């Protein structure tokens, strides 16, 4: 009986390791590819002289692809989108958690429906509209459209955090002579700070990883890394080492941020539907 148990344990661990090989091998292989010199790309697979030339080329813009600029663009539009969503979304989340009023549920569900709307339904008309308004290929245009990604996430998750907060604390503050505004800023907001930090990072990651908006609504000046990484695949002989280097550089920010919000992921990924 005991031996059977131990054998089953090993089997389970073996199965887990198998899955994680599937999950991690592609990333490891990208690291290998990105470190290969151009002349050893296809001659060998696992034996080569590592070099940082691929990264130098990608980050030195020497292929005529301004990758550093794309990277900065991604930073700017993702940060801008998250900032705007926070300013607008936090009060809305608080109001919908604390008061029931006409139309609040409808508004919340409209917001949630953005999360599931096919992006192109909104992007194609925007593509036409932006050309007229001069917003095509601009930061402002990108920050605006990224609200589709960041706003529903921030409002829904913060709403669930505010709803979990006991109202007694705010009431005590009101009794002490605070105004409603002070109660929100000095009592409620500080208590959900960890939630705000986590949801901001998650929204940043989703904005950063977005591809279809910059693909259609930017061309060069405001293009982001997700579209830029595809450029290295062009040409008659795709430059594998450069593509791999570009792909790895572009996943660094989201991966680093993701490590810091592991604890909050369940609620964040499920829009507050599952709390841990």
């Amino acid at each position, binding site marked *: 009986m005991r031996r059977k148990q131990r054998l089953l*344990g090993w089997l*389970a*661990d073996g*199965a*887990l390791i198998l*899955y994680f090989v599937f*999950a991690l091998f*592609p*990333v490891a292989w*990208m690291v290998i590819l990105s470190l290969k010199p151009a002349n050893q790309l*296809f001659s060998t697979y696992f034996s080569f002289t590592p070099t940082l030339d691929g990264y130098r080329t990608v980050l030195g813009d020497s292929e005529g692809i301004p990758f550093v600029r794309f990277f900065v663009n991604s930073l700017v539009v993702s940060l801008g989108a998250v900032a*705007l969503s926070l300013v607008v979304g936090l*009060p809305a989340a608080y109001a*919908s*958690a*604390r008061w029931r009023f006409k139309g*609040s549920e409808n*508004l919340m*569900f409209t917001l949630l*429906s953005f999360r*599931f*709307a*096919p*992006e*192109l339904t909104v992007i*194609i*008309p*925007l*593509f036409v*509209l932006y050309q007229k308004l001069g917003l095509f290929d601009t930061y402002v245009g990108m920050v605006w459209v990224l609200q589709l990604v960041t*706003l529903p996430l921030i*409002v829904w998750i913060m709403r*669930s955090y505010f*709803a979990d907060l006991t*109202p007694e604390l705010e*009431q005590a503050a*009101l*009794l002490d002579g605070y105004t409603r505004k002070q109660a929100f800023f000095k009592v409620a907001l500080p208590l959900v700070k960890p939630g705000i930090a986590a949801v901001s990072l998650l929204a940043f990651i989703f904005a950063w*990883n977005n*591809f*279809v908006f910059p693909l*259609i609504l930017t061309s060069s000046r405001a293009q982001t890394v*997700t579209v830029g*990484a595809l450029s290295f*695949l062009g040409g008659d002989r795709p430059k*594998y080492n450069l*593509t791999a280097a570009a*792909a790895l550089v*572009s*996943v660094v920010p*989201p991966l680093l*941020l*993701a490590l810091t919000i592991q604890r909050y992921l*369940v609620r964040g*990924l*499920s*829009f507050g*539907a599952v*709390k*841990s």
Partner: protein
Amino acid sequence: MAETTSFTETDHGAASREEGARQVRAVPRWRRGLRPYLLIVPALLLTGGILYPFGLGLYYTLFDFSASKPRPDMVGFDNYRTVFTQDAFWNSAWVTVLYAVGAAAFETVLGVAVALLLHRSSIVGRVLEKILILPLMIAPVIAAIIWKLMLQPSVGVINHLLKPFGLGGVQWTDTPTGALLSSIAVDVWVYTPFVAILALAGLRSLPTSPFEAAAVDGAGWWYTFRRLTLPMLWPYVLVAVIFRFMDSLKVFDIIYALTEGGPGDSTVVLQIRAYLEAIRFQRYSFGISYTIVLWAVVYLAAMVLVRHLGRIQNRAAEVPK
């Protein structure tokens, strides 16, 4: 402790308990009533700014608007009639459904399996759990680029690794079936952790007493899993399934980077078709019509699934804990 809360009800008990406290300060009644609206106005404006292009898109579908026809005529529902009578549309719809069902099914089975294995909590499991989310945080388009490099028939590493098994020259993305399966595989690679994370949160919040009772009664592993674990876990898994199914109905990034809809039109899902129509061929009205049809499908699927989820959650709430 994890718990599922439904999307359909929130705790507004707070509102009534606050009445007393809010009387303390002399703020005129009309201003008190206005407050939630004032707080929500900015979000409303922004929402309106997103709804406007959506409405504009709906309006465009009633015209024959394209780059070659900047002064379009009103055509009523002709665009939709054309969409529904095209073989291309039905092919795309079929491919989209295959993709969504395939991806969601694989991810659910694999994700729940990974969660069950991690839940056993061995040393190996605890170490691996920390890196579980890695693929999920990689942009889907980057994931597709990574797999594209690996799946190259002649120089890709996967065929190289398969050589010892006598499978050297598999044409992964160059055959219709292979291309569809490859794109589903990328989806599974990226999103399995999503299902696993939610399922694991569910597993860790299940009550222990039924399992202890089952162990005392000498119930086998399979019986315990079928009769206890799965029914209690299902609400959590279903949340994950809903997200995954609805997201893969509108897949774009992975297909765009991996196959661009090819070979032929074997992986042209609806959003790719809409992209080709509107952006490549600049038939704006027609392209938007495709996305409106897709939007309607996603919306209907959501309604059915969320209603089902509500029923399941109610039933789960009745399980004695």
